[in-house]
């Protein structure tokens, strides 16, 4: 059995309820949801709706129809960014964003959008007052990651949300690393648009994700097409969720997601507590290994479960290979699709070894990882 510490990339293993739900869906309910009126299409529509309700519940959204499904968080972020910024304006973001945010923003910048990148501190944390200082009359959006996929730094989203609300600026949050594992409440965190993925903290399959819109928020569609509604019209519907969901959904994936979110929500507090305890043990252990440098917040309350390290002057990929082949520990090395974050942390261009905890991570696995890192650091000395 591998020691899987790459949960920031995708969570593993998934709960058995997830594949049971997907297998059952494929065998019994797998009509095209919301298209035909027959019993299988209706069964599929109910399954998709259950996924909407589950996601709405875990993020504190009032109506399930404001949960829009996409194939992943990246697509959801594109819907938000291209929906709000194609006519120009000013946008504010942080210096530790994932490329799912930075690449669309840099592209939009080339099209004439003014981009302010607020610099985070050496641990990857943002000061909300720096956001306040960046706001201008032309600001159309503030977009922030909830937690860094490189160093785990959990950003003060409620504080930033409050500032955004004060200035009447929409606030978007990239919850790829936190949905399902850190508390999120759309209303209490002043979030207008939340992007999430199904296959990380929520424990669902790849190919699921989406966005949640606050009650009074709207977006134009990125994709236009068939929605199974207003079939007499050649124009996209104006109501949610159909407006932002063209084409057939990944219904089998959503059957898995519905089951996953149910399990995750029921175990939320227990899993989070355990993760924080394991993080504390991990950071304590790492601090005792000569030659190991850690990046990001070492206070478990400020860390979403992602630990980035370097070992002496060894190339991160070499360390990752050793961890995998010699010790069976699976990690991700390099720049983690977040060059901006590595520049902020001072690990660009060499990157880091990233170990990310998940719902199934045990204290034995943390012990094993610490022993392996110790051995490697010894060898590398």
């Amino acid at each position: 059995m591998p020691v899987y510490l790459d949960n920031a990339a995708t969570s593993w293993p998934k709960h058995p309820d997830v594949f049971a739900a997907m297998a059952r869906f494929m065998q019994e309910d797998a009509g095209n949801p919301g298209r035909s009126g027959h019993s299988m299409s209706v069964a599929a529509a109910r399954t998709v709706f259950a996924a909407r309700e589950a996601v709405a519940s875990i993020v504190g959204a009032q109506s399930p129809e404001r949960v829009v499904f996409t194939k992943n968080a990246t697509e959801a972020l594109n819907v938000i960014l291209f929906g709000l910024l194609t006519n120009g304006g000013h946008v504010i973001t942080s210096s530790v964003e994932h490329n799912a945010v930075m690449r669309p923003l840099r592209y939009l910048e080339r099209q004439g959008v003014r981009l302010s990148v607020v610099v985070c501190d050496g641990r990857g944390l943002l000061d909300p007052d720096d956001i306040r200082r960046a706001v201008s009359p032309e600001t159309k959006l503030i977009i922030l990651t909830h937690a860094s996929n490189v160093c785990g730094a959990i950003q003060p989203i409620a504080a930033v949300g409050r500032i955004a609300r004060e200035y009447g600026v929409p606030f978007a949050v990239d919850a790829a690393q936190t949905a399902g594992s850190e508390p999120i409440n759309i209303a209490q965190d002043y979030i207008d648009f939340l992007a999430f993925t199904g296959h990380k903290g929520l424990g669902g399959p790849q190919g699921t994700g989406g966005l949640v819109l606050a009650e009074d928020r709207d977006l134009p569609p990125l994709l236009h097409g068939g929605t199974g509604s207003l079939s007499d019209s050649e124009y996209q519907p104006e109501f949610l969720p159909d407006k932002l969901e063209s084409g057939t959904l990944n219904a089998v994936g959503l059957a898995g997601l519905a089951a996953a979110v149910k399990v995750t929500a029921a175990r939320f507090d227990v899993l989070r507590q355990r993760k924080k305890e394991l993080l504390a043990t991990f950071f304590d252990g790492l601090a005792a290994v000569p030659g190991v440098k850690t990046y990001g917040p070492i206070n478990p309350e400020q860390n979403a479960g992602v630990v980035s390290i370097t070992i002496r002057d060894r190339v991160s990929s070499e360390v990752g290979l050793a961890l995998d082949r010699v010790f069976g520990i699976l990690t991700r090395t390099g720049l983690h699709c977040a060059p901006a974050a590595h520049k902020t942390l001072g690990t660009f261009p060499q990157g880091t070894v990233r170990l990310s905890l998940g719902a199934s991570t045990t204290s034995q696995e943390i012990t094993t990882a610490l022993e392996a890192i110790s051995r490697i650091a010894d060898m590398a000395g």
Partner: protein
Amino acid sequence: MDENCGIITFYSSSHAVHAEKVLKSAGYLAELVPGPKDISPNCGVALRYDYENTDKVKELLEQKGVAYEACHLYRAPQRKSLLDLLLGR
């Protein structure tokens, strides 16, 4: 379908499924059926319910924020429905 029954039509299947949940939770009989194309070209699913409850049902849906197109008293054409014919009713 019965000769006279209540049919709620919707713009989106998400709304239809939501309405079914809301009505059933409140103790009303509600069943998702193929949307009758002779009353609405819209969503492929509609909700059959007891037409006598229309006022209360409308109030409930509005209260719960569930969007719907309209509540219809559906009078099937004056001949036996296909379902009745095929099932020998």
